[in-house]
């Protein structure tokens, strides 16, 4: 059960108030008639399924009825950010990977320090 921050209501709400609507930032081709069958097929049927950072469209269905975007980690289920329609994510897969690289280096450093202290955990 996710706990989702609605950017319009300005607070966290229970998952049961929301509906997921699939991958975010799928925009309809401006001139559908100008697209090839393949391009139109891609727009209709093909979605990403990443292990890691994913941008999703959600709606606060039992709430303010507004659509917004969520950047979510598909392994940890952590919601990394929410942002309104028309806005761009500040956390992307590339950005996240770089951040995690730095963090895990930190963690190793901390862990080796902790071993020397009178720690209770390794």
């Amino acid at each position, binding site marked *: *059960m996710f*706990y989702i921050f609605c950017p319009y209501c300005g607070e966290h709400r229970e998952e049961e108030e929301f509906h997921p609507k699939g991958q975010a930032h799928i925009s309809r081709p401006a001139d*559908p008639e100008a*697209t090839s*069958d393949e391009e139109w097929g891609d727009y209709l049927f093909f979605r990403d399924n990443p292990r890691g950072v994913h941008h999703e469209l959600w*709606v606060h269905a039992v709430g303010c009825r*507004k659509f917004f975007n969520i950047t979510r980690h598909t392994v940890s*289920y952590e919601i990394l950010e929410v942002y309104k*329609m028309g806005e761009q994510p500040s956390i992307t897969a590339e950005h996240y990977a770089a951040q995690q690289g730095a963090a895990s280096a930190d963690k190793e450093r901390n862990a080796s320090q902790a071993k020397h202290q009178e720690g209770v955990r*390794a």
Partner: protein
Amino acid sequence: MSQPNRLKTGGRVDRSRQLTFTFNGQRYQGHPGDTLASALLANGVDIVNRSFKYSRPRGIVAAGAEEPNGIVQLGSSEAGQVPNVRATQQALYQNLSARSTNGWPNVQRDLMGLVGKLGGQFMPPGFYYKTFMAPASMWLTYEKYIRKAAGLGRSPTENDADIYDHRHQHCDVLVVGAGPAGLSAALAAGRAGARVILVDEQEEMGGSLLSSRESIDDAPATTWAEKVLKELSALEDVTLMPRTTANGYHDHNFVTLHERCTEHLADIAPHVGGRRQVRSRMHRVRAGQVVLASGAHERPLVYAGNDVPGNMLAGAVSTYIRRYGVVPGNRLVLATSNDDGYRAALDWSEAGREVVAIADARQNPDGELVEQARAKGIRVIAGSAVIEARGDKRVAVAKVAKIDIEGFKVSGPVEELACDTIASSGGFSPVVHLASHTGSRPTWNEELLGFVPSPVKGMTPTGGAHGVYALGKVIADGFKAGSAAGEACGFERQDASLPKVDERREGAAVALYQVPHQKATLRGPKQFVDMQNDVTAAAIELATREGFESIEHVKRYTALGFGTDQGKLGNINGMAIAARCLGRTIPEVGTTVFRPNYTPVSFGAIVGRHCGELFDPERYTAMHQWHVENGAEFEDVGQWKRPWYFPQKRRAENGERLETMHEAVARECSAVREKVGILDASTLGKIDIQGPDAREFLGRVYTNKWAKLAPGRVRYGLMCKDDGMVFDDGTTSCLGENHFLMTTSTGGAATVLEWLEIWHQTEWPELDVYFNSVTDHWATMTVTGPEARKLMAELTDIDLDKDSFKFMDWHEGNVAGVPARVFRISFTGELAYEINVQANYAMHVWKKLFAHGDKYGLTPYGTETMHVLRAEKGFIIAGQDTDGSVTPEDLGMHWAIGYDKPNSWIGKRALTRPDTKRTDRKQMVGLKPKDPSVVLEEGAQVVFDPNHAIPMPMKGHVTSSYYSPTLQSGFALAVVKGGHQKMGETVYLPMVDGQVHEAEIVSPIFLDPKGERQNV
């Protein structure tokens, strides 16, 4: 005096009061404060169950949630039956009635035990799979007997007499476990002002403090616990919940708690003041921070015969003595790998009973508790272990020998010690279950010889849950965790004012899991790892030899940890044995993950009040009471209760009888076709659309044109998804130049509104338009049939002349004195008026229509008649005649497709994809059975050649099928490949019973193709 094992003093039971209970039909006495397990031990009951697979006698092993054997069936009446109760967690109450869950005819004299003895060596892991696999047809027979022999209790055959419910909780800090760490953590967070929930699964809060030998601030540990609990209960925003198990830890700090509200009082909740009480309650907690203070479970040592009653955990022995005033035997042998186990021997000795010897696996045990034991004159045999317990229904002899742990062998002569109890301690396993529910795998810590939780966001383990065991350190660690959790929620850090606890000098523990025996594991006597599932060390070794190397595979092959106890005692030992056999370390073998629930939860608590009449919302229209009073049968349409048909009384031989559905529908259909009928159509979705771009928006979401629809006019529209497939339809009326009222199907109301919003909010925010649901505001009644105009004329001031109020017009005026919008749209093919009034006045209008309608034969009709009438006209129902794979062209509705509209409306582009242009798509047609008495089955498959070998190529299927009293024949709508080009051809519908129906492909419009009846 009964209760031979009850001490005269000590413990937290109230000896001044007696409680009578029965176990397997035998009456016993216990006291308030007892668990069923402590009372059974007090009464000297050794055998509480028979084992799952081998039917061996089993006794109480533990004192808490980790108990594998003491699983009982509770309940003195059928409705109050509760399966699967752990005796160690069940508080004793007056007249408690419990039975063993296994054992036939009874646990003392068990026939299945013979199977265990004789068949024992022939029942390796995979026994059932290997033995009963063939022939497959026999499995049902085998299963019946296997289940009878196995089983962990039974469900009641009567309805549960109790109620259960849910409660939603929110807090800053949830502390799981009210032992020293949890109490201390709750104190720190509570003092900071945080909203704190402290839960503990036991009857009384305090955890290990309730059986501790140690002092805090120079007083018994329980005194400190009482003091802290007093302070906590005085804090307004701290909630204390005893008898409550945190069972599931879900994403984003969502934790489910199971509170047993009355299970300590009776098997059926007593009424208070004439009102029902809930038996148990599920709390759904959203916590800012979780402090996991779930403590640690002691690990038993795995030696031969370790399942004979009288083999217990060392810590449990201490708990029974110190907390319940029960010494579970007379002569004790203790087997341990660490200092902590010595508490059992000291407590035993202080209770005045004999400690025969302590077999300590360490070469030079020298901790403080070891010295205390030696000072009492207890014999300590260093470097040794109990390698085997002997005894039939109770331990009689402990075989002790020197062992070589590294070499996994017995290294000295075997000494046989007469005793009736063997306590063992192989160290502690932190209770990491909750921490791993969200997917985080625990990490092995070689110093602690246990798995500790891996990081989980928003969760802090403390105390025994991450391997801090010394009391003083536990309290400090808990305080630190509680303070940090409070701080993470925005409260101030709390300075610790910690109580004084004397530090105990402790000797190092040694890693011992399975104890070597003189015989090799596969040939020696059984050494049990998982007692609930009868998994032995040999079984695990065999599994590894058969090639199961992953611990997840070993688990599934042997059933290790699959019991209701989820392997709380056995898992780590099992992994250690697998590691030994595979020549790997424990972290290399890894651990399995734990899933919710930590302990079993009754279905009632999961369901809560969502049962019976409250199972799901029932939505009613404003005329519902009339429908009920007029005998309507109801149909569920989404959550709506819609009248299905209105059976009338008919004269029969013996008085009266109700019409069958067939009779009622025939009568209702004829009334509409010949006179006038009325339908409650209030459930249709209604969306009020306003704004200067409303018209443009409609043009984009509907397949047809909206640019020229004038105020006062109504139009039918089809909606597609962008893949070109129809997903809803309905009429939309122009109320004003910038104002429209859209109707949707009953089931599609919410979906369509969300559909409009998603396009507006994500693709076309520049369009100035708003959508509001007005479904519930209006009540809708359809008056339809040749006499409809006459009836309406009696009640309305609206000019009903066919030239001033034309088909597909709407007018406003009064109907029965109530302002109404009346729409001339028809779903029956007859002259029809859809009257919309504000719902609060609907019943008045409805009743007035009937007051005037009698002379015209006004007949209420339900959804079944509505379906027949619309199908005769070939009108589709989205979701019944379409299934997300049908285009407007497939439906033959070219007239509703505006290919030349200026915008690329939703679905248009997809209609030119090669797949949607195929001529052999399934297309909507009518089917006329050759035999008019046949009503084809909905869903029946259409084939072209009934003589084709099976499997026949399937060419389509029936989507709607009814008997038409007007046509005097069955008829159907169907989708058939290339059907539009096959008019007049014969198709076949083979049925399950071998019959093959013949039908002719015809136009889906069976009645009045020119629409002359509705356009009058």
